[in-house]
């Protein structure tokens, strides 16, 4: 009795110590905390957009067209007299939604393919890894543009186009992690006692690939936001009167000389959002195994 | 004649958990041409001691707060950065545990040896290249002329360590600090590397500090042994004396922990407990929580070095 106690207690103690240490390390990572704070604020703004925004995002007012920033209109108004501040506030909903959607699709695609490549190995691995390398090498914006030229413009199409052109990092990270997991005793034991492939994958391997993928997901959100808003800026993404940040920027472009505020503020919103996720992702990567997510 | 003397050396590290007192006042010396073994469990501060001598402790987070390192009559802690560069590789050399990672992968072995020779210009070498070939020859690398053009990845593990030794000894230092030089090597290669070091030691008349956790290596290669525990030196003595008549309870425990063929496995003495952390070390003698002979004073007062005669020194209240 005493012996088993002795054997089990150090293990639980170290693991508790480890998670504690990770947590403390994260707490000390000031940029990550700032990033997290901004993200939480952003989520709150998105949720309470109708409360925060003084106007509807599509409320036109032709008596107040292209007004500069003032107490009534913090970020000024656009060519239809719409309140830019309200539009930017509502735009946070689109940005967060689109970015998470893109990343979730990328996660599902990348993790599935990576798990298959790593677990089954052999020809399956060669095929999937080759495909992954191919997609990896190609700039997603170009591939997405090509796809959009075929399937047409629109926010949903942009999400699909970006997601299916930039899942490659997830596949690589997952494959590498699965390969290292396969060598571990508990997985080998599972195989030895005749568990099915899917049960081994789900029970032993999946839980262990969550952390690196989560870090990667955080670091991928900025790219997703930048690419979707770039496409919206070019006019291929969200269509008017959507308050998508990229779309607002696009609308303000022609008035840059007379109404700088229309394009300036949504850009700052994008910058702050990507900055926040990058800081958080950097912090998470420092806390978890840094090597695994670098490449 | 004393070559190196370390007096009351204190070293601390700023770590995630707080300030760690990694070396808590250590004293030892080494004479010309002598081999001193520095032994202890991992984390006891033996590698850090070696790095301190060459002032290779990254600062921050590490800092030597107190003490002296007297080498050939001069305190190394008072040397300028430039003077230290001349001493490193020139008068004191160091080799490391894993030869797979301690040579620069993008330069040839010959280039890396040549760099040391050009830097320190040792006497008695006609040209840099001759020095390179001679150095490789002295560590028994066959065909040194052409091997000098090889990159580290073209060498086997044992050859790399010998290449490393050739590089570090090409400038004929008077002291070599060898930090676990054989730990990462195959058993068959270990003896060869130790032999190469011993041969060169005789030839150059150089002293060696052999840092190791392997008591077998100590028994074979060393003249004297210093046993370290948790940033302190527990005991120093000639190698025969230490093995035959260990005084410090920790040394006794260590020696008891070597499996020996003539003893039953059940007799294997294991020192209970684990190495204390350096942030909140035990008060008094750092070994007392694991010591079977601990007395009240051990929990309160740090033991001082006791000279038992014939250079046998022990830091333990049992002998105070």
């Amino acid at each position, binding site marked *: 009795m005493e012996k088993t106690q002795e054997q089990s207690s150090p293990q639980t103690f170290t693991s508790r110590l480890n998670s504690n240490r990770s947590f403390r390390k994260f707490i000390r990572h000031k940029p990550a905390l700032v990033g997290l704070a901004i993200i939480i604020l952003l989520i709150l703004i998105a949720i309470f957009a109708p409360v925060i925004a003084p106007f509807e995002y599509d409320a036109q007012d032709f008596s107040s067209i292209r007004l500069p920033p003032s107490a009534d209109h913090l970020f000024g108004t656009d060519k239809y007299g719409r309140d830019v501040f309200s539009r930017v506030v509502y735009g946070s909903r689109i940005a967060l939604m689109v970015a998470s959607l893109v990343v979730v699709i990328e996660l599902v695609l990348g993790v599935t393919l990576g798990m298959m490549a790593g677990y089954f190995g052999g020809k399956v691995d060669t095929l999937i890894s080759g495909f992954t390398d191919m997609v990896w*090498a190609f700039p997603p914006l170009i591939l997405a*543009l090509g796809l959009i030229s075929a399937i047409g413009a629109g926010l949903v199409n942009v999400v699909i186009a970006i997601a299916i052109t930039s899942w490659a990092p997830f596949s690589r990270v997952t494959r590498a992690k699965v390969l290292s997991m396969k060598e571990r005793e508990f997985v080998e034991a599972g195989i030895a006692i005749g568990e099915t492939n899917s049960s081994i994958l789900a029970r032993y391997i999946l839980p262990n690939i969550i952390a690196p993928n989560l870090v990667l997901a955080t670091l991928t959100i900025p790219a997703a936001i930048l690419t979707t808003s*770039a496409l919206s*800026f070019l006019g291929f993404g969200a269509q008017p009167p959507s308050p998508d940040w990229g779309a607002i920027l696009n609308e303000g472009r022609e008035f840059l000389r007379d109404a*700088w505020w229309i394009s300036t503020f949504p850009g700052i919103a994008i910058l702050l959002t*990507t900055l926040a996720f990058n800081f958080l992702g950097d912090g998470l990567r420092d806390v978890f195994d840094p090597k695994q997510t670098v490449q | 004649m004393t070559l190196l003397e370390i007096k009351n050396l204190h070293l601390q590290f700023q770590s995630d958990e707080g300030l760690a007192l990694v070396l808590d006042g250590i004293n030892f010396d080494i004479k010309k041409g002598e081999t001193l073994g520095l032994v202890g469990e991992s984390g006891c501060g033996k590698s850090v001691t070696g790095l301190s001598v060459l002032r290779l402790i990254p600062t921050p987070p590490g800092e030597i707060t107190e003490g002296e390192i007297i080498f050939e009559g001069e305190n190394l802690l008072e040397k300028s950065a430039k003077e230290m560069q001349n*001493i*490193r590789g020139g008068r004191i050399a160091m080799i490391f545990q894993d030869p797979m990672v301690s040579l620069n992968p993008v*330069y040839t072995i010959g280039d890396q040896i040549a760099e040391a020779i050009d830097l320190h210009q040792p006497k008695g070498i006609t040209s840099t290249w001759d020095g390179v070939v001679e150095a490789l020859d002295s560590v028994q690398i066959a065909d040194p002329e052409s091997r000098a053009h090889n*990159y580290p990845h073209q060498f086997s593990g044992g050859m790399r360590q010998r290449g490393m030794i050739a590089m570090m000894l090409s400038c004929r230092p008077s002291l070599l600090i060898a930090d676990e030089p054989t730990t990462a090597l195959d058993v068959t290669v270990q003896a060869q590397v130790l032999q190469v070091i011993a041969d060169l030691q005789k030839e150059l008349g150089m002293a060696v500090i052999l840092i190791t956790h392997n008591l077998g290596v100590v028994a074979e290669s060393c003249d004297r042994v210093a046993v370290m525990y948790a940033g302190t030196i527990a005991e120093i003595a000639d190698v025969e004396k230490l093995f035959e008549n260990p005084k410090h309870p920790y040394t006794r425990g260590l020696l008891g922990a070597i499996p020996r063929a003539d003893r039953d496995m059940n007799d294997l003495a294991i020192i209970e407990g684990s190495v204390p952390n350096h942030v909140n070390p035990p008060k008094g003698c750092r070994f007392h929580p694991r010591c079977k002979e601990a007395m009240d004073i051990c929990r309160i007062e740090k033991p001082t070095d006791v000279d038992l005669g014939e250079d046998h020194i022990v830091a333990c209240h049992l002998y105070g």
Partner: protein
Amino acid sequence: MLRYITKRLIFSIPIVLGVTLIAFLILYLTPGDPVTNLLGSRATPEARAELSEKLGLDQPVLVQYGRWLGNVLHGDLGTSILTKQPVSEAIGSRLSYTLKLTLTAFLSSVLIGIPVGIFAAAKQNTAADHISMGIAMFFYSMPDFWFGLMLILVFSLTLQWLPVSGAYGPKYLILPALALGLPKIGSIARLMRAETLEVMREEYSLTARAKGISEWLIMFKHVLRNAAIPVMVMLFLALPWLISGAVVIETIFAWPGMGQLMYQAILRKDFPVIQALLLIIAILTVLFNLLGDVVAGLLDPRIRVK
């Protein structure tokens, strides 16, 4: 080394084939029949019949792909629906503009990003490191299209130092090159810092120090020589991304390069042009990847010398 390059070349063939297949299939993913997509709706029946014949529309898709690839290999990239100009001509006249823009942007970001990264690594964990990495992160997170607009707002509209758009001389290159290049400084400096720190932690850096080499020489001879390997590879990999960024930047600054052409082609569904551009960018991507591998091989004896 030669074998290594050959191996890399062979590996890149499926990548080029894969991307060309995607470029080719775009036509078939698009609603409507390929002939209309390629010729536009106002084409004459004769032209339609001729193209059907040329594409071999009655044959299986893979055969059609083969034919298309064959045409491409013979330099026949088709005709622009919009301008009726051969696509190869349209692209040819714009290629030099894009190369001029991307290379200027690339060089300026490398020349700034690399030293900043090295500096930050050398001063690791000091205020100088934190500040330069904070700025790097700022650029890294910057939407380049917004940055381009802000540059126009400040330097063209407000200060009136530089022209708003067009390509009528060296002055016109400055703002688009800055808009494209500066945000990349962030990733280059971050990468350089990370790789430099990684090598500084390697034991051979400690060996160099134990040998008595000066800190300055350790950095430049031992550390940077090793850190350069992954950084060079990444830089070559990043070039195609710059070209993709050029789509947005060229559009903003009315810079007559391939990116602007791509934008216009997508707007107007000019499929032959889109296909050709995808193809060219795919080839450039593979080429730069290959170049990166070759440079890595040249820098790294573990690859070069077997």
